[in-house]
């Protein structure tokens, strides 16, 4: 294991795998990293996967990898690829992943550390009790299949129209919390059944809720425009489309793998199975993926609503008076049609982001009015116990089709994490940093311990120095709730 193939450094924070590396590559692979990160990235098969993605028909620009890249299945985690519908471009469910629209939302508060410190234990207990989490968790929201179909079409608005949030929340979600391409007829009965009982559930693995404090501000003006101050408390939610998304990906991967021999498409890994964007199979997948994306936006909206209610109970005050307002909600496992400039010409491309975040620069028409001057908030959760970042997109990030990283990126397998980790040591480390943790499974804590991830500070520094996004502030955890 480990990459020993062709790789050259072409700029301070950029490495290249030439398209000559493998016969069948249609373009180069470009990896954003510094010397230290690239050493760690070479330890697994992620770079081989960057090369494999370059086989996708109709790929535009390069097969891209963010500095948090690590070994996934099909695409690397941290991979970005854009395809052109007018050049026989394809869409690949493996380029989106099973957890369609896994994403993050960041909520600001008017509370400072001293307001929260004495109530932190009570608050975390409340959050832990009120928000369903853990493996295969079931939500408190029971809906009929008919209602689920409405939810899949409407996205986050479905939750807001039922009192779980306000209209303003929708403005601060990527795509307003709903992909217009969603067509519930394209979602299998099995996927509908699988998703019915999981609305408003956190899940397990690397999904979490975090109570954080802003430790450092890098861009005062932007932070002020976003209403963020050093010492103020923020909240972060990381979750996705749960079983419904997994089933949609499985249904369409199965179909595309079966059809692959009849399409003439040559790919080195079947998990990259894909369909031409103008085919019915691709159109059906896009319609179903849109539904799963909408489910995920509903899920995070409901989770935020439950979080707001928990705060209301603990602080005996309304969430509005506590200032629990959504900063932004981003998707980091998704494929979307976006307009980008290619060789001076504006084109609509299908941009796959598998463990990567859209990062639109200032003045982009897709941004809400409030963020037109700042650029899109780019939320980068770190590992449990260290730090997370808020960045904003930059217009210069054209080469990545306005994309940045999505997290720290794993460096150690779950098996090794459990074998080498020591739970008591981990809990002592949390204690020493003043972090309180509530978790359904202790095993999950070891699997997600800080030492199994790359150094988030280095990853974010590369993103900034490579010109992909600009750092606004750094948040550190006070309390973590994990499934």
């Amino acid at each position, binding site marked *: 294991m480990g990459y020993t193939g062709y790789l050259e450094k072409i700029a301070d924070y950029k490495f290249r795998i030439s398209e000559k590396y493998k016969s069948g590559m249609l373009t180069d692979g470009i990896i954003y990293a510094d010397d230290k990160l690239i050493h760690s990235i070479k330890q697994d098969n992620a770079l081989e996967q960057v090369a494999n993605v370059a086989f996708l028909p109709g790929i535009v620009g390069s097969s891209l990898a963010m500095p948090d890249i690590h*070994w996934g*299945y099909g695409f690397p985690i941290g991979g970005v690829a854009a395809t052109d519908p007018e050049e026989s471009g394809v869409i690949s469910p493996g380029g989106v992943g099973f957890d369609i629209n896994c994403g993050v939302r960041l909520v600001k508060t008017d509370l400072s550390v001293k307001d929260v410190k004495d109530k932190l234990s009570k608050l975390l207990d409340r959050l832990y009790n009120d928000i369903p989490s853990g493996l295969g968790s079931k939500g408190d929201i029971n809906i009929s299949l008919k209602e689920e179909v409405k939810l899949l079409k409407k996205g986050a608005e479905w939750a807001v129209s039922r009192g779980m949030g306000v209209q303003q929340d929708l403005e601060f979600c990527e795509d307003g919390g709903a992909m217009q391409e969603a067509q519930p007829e394209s979602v299998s009965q099995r996927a509908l059944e699988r998703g019915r009982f999981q609305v408003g559930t956190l899940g397990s693995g690397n999904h979490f809720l975090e109570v954080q404090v802003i430790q450092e501000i890098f861009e005062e003006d932007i932070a002020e425009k976003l209403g963020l101050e050093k010492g103020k408390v923020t909240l972060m939610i990381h979750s996705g489309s749960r*079983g419904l998304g*997994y089933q949609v990906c*499985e249904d369409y991967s199965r179909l595309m793998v079966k059809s692959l021999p009849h399409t003439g498409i040559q790919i080195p890994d079947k998990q990259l199975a894909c369909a031409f964007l103008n085919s019915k199979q691709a159109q059906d997948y896009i319609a179903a993926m849109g539904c799963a994306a909408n489910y995920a936006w509903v899920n995070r909206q409901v989770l935020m609503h439950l979080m707001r209610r928990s705060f209301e109970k603990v602080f005996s005050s309304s969430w509005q008076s506590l200032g629990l307002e959504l900063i932004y909600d981003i998707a980091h496992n998704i494929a979307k049609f976006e307009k980008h400039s290619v060789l001076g010409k504006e084109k609509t491309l299908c941009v796959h982001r598998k463990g990567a975040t859209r990062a639109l620069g200032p003045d982009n028409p897709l941004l809400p009015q409030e963020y037109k001057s700042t650029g899109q908030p780019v939320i980068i959760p770190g590992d449990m116990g260290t730090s997370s970042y808020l960045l904003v997109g930059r217009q210069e990030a054209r080469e990545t089709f306005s994309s940045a990283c999505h997290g720290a990126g794993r460096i150690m397998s779950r*098996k090794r994490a459990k074998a080498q980790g020591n739970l008591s040591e981990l809990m002592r480390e949390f204690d020493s940093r003043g972090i309180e943790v509530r978790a359904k499974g202790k095993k999950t804590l070891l699997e997600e311990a800080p030492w199994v991830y790359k150094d988030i500070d280095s990853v974010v520094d590369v993103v900034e120095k490579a010109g992909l996004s600009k750092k606004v502030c750094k948040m550190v955890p006070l309390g973590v709730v994990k499934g």
Partner: protein
Amino acid sequence: MDTFEFIEHTADIGIRVKAKTLEELFSFSAKSLFFIVIGDVSSKCHVTREIELEAGTIEDLLVVWLNELLSLFYTYGFFPSNPVIYIKQNPVKSLRAKIKGFRLNPYSMRLKQEVKAATYHNLKITKNSKGYVGEIIFDV
């Protein structure tokens, strides 16, 4: 559980399964998967399901089989305890299975590991003098 061993993968879980026959490989792979998800569970089998699946290759058929079982578990709470499997390789790769199992509500019990799906990535089935070896990576 002696039907499998773990293989290294940075983000997900990989397993290697050894068996004397293809049918046994499919059966052991299923047992291994559910051991990872739930651990050791047993109960009187009172539900029987029959399924038929097809795929382009025998490796693809293994993924389709495992994902079908995962889907039945998460959707209908069906735990596959004792599958009897028939595999046909000609003219297409197909599988017919009669599975004895029991109801197990995934929402009312503590699972060990959420497995989202079996993937096609680095999927292998090889034949040697002792039988078959399968390697599967699960997205977790």
